[in-house]
């Protein structure tokens, strides 16, 4: 189970309202390589991981992804706080405003709603761990694109933190893959 702790993992600040940047950040709130996809992917795959190191790694990284989802939500909330319908419309968020007002909603930067089709859980721990390593790289690339789209120092600092976490998670999944492979080889499951 989980307990909510009333704190963010990283102090996410913004300097000013920026609706265009909020729209782009939706990529990481409800897009294919979003923090939401990452959390659901790892927390779903963990049940069929064969060794304790892998169960722990997927549980804890999946949990951290939920904290990252909250950080992206905080950035979007702060960047859109107080925006008028006209401002939302001019920034390309008129479609969003029609259906959601200033509420957040898990869709991507183009407004496509989140779907479980973005993730996989195959029951093969090697396959799943490769998917996770690819997912971390895709998210890292997305963060690099997002960083190049803003000059807000608070947003850049926060996205740089999240980008770095993708690198660390890739490393941890790589180690987990090696441990799972060792375990499978010892079991002679051929």
């Amino acid at each position: 189970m989980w307990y909510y702790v009333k704190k963010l993992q990283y102090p996410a600040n913004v300097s000013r309202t920026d609706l265009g940047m909020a729209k782009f950040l939706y990529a990481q709130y409800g897009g294919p390589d979003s923090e939401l996809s990452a959390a659901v992917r790892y927390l779903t795959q963990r049940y069929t991981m064969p060794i304790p190191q892998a169960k722990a790694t997927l549980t804890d990284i999946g949990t951290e992804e939920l904290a990252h989802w909250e950080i992206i939500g905080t950035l979007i909330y702060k960047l859109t706080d107080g925006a008028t319908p006209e401002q939302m419309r001019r920034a390309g968020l008129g479609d969003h405003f029609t259906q959601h007002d200033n509420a957040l909603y898990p869709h991507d930067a183009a407004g496509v709603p989140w779907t479980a089709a973005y993730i996989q859980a195959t029951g093969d721990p090697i396959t799943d761990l490769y998917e996770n390593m690819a997912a971390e790289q895709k998210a890292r690339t997305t963060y690099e694109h997002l960083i190049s789209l803003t000059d807000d120092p608070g947003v850049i600092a926060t996205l740089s933190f999240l980008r770095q976490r993708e690198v660390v998670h890739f490393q941890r999944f790589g180690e987990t893959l090696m441990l799972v492979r060792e375990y499978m080889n010892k079991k002679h499951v051929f």
Partner: protein
Amino acid sequence: MYSKDMVDLLKEIMAVDFVVYELALFLNTHPMDRRALEDHNNFARRSQELRAMYEKKYGPLTLGSVSEFPYQYINNPWPWEIRY
């Protein structure tokens, strides 16, 4: 609504908790690393101290924290409303 002192202490907890989390992820795949475990335990103890200090002054961080009357957990600020 909230003071700079509150935000500073909260940010210190956030930083210490990040170290705990990072070391925990490392220990998941390196459970035999004694030095990493010592670091983890030291920062985990520091986190407990800081959280107790924060909660005494500013109210509960979790729903399982002991609260004064009336129930304090619901009070502002929530993490997405704070200017850090």
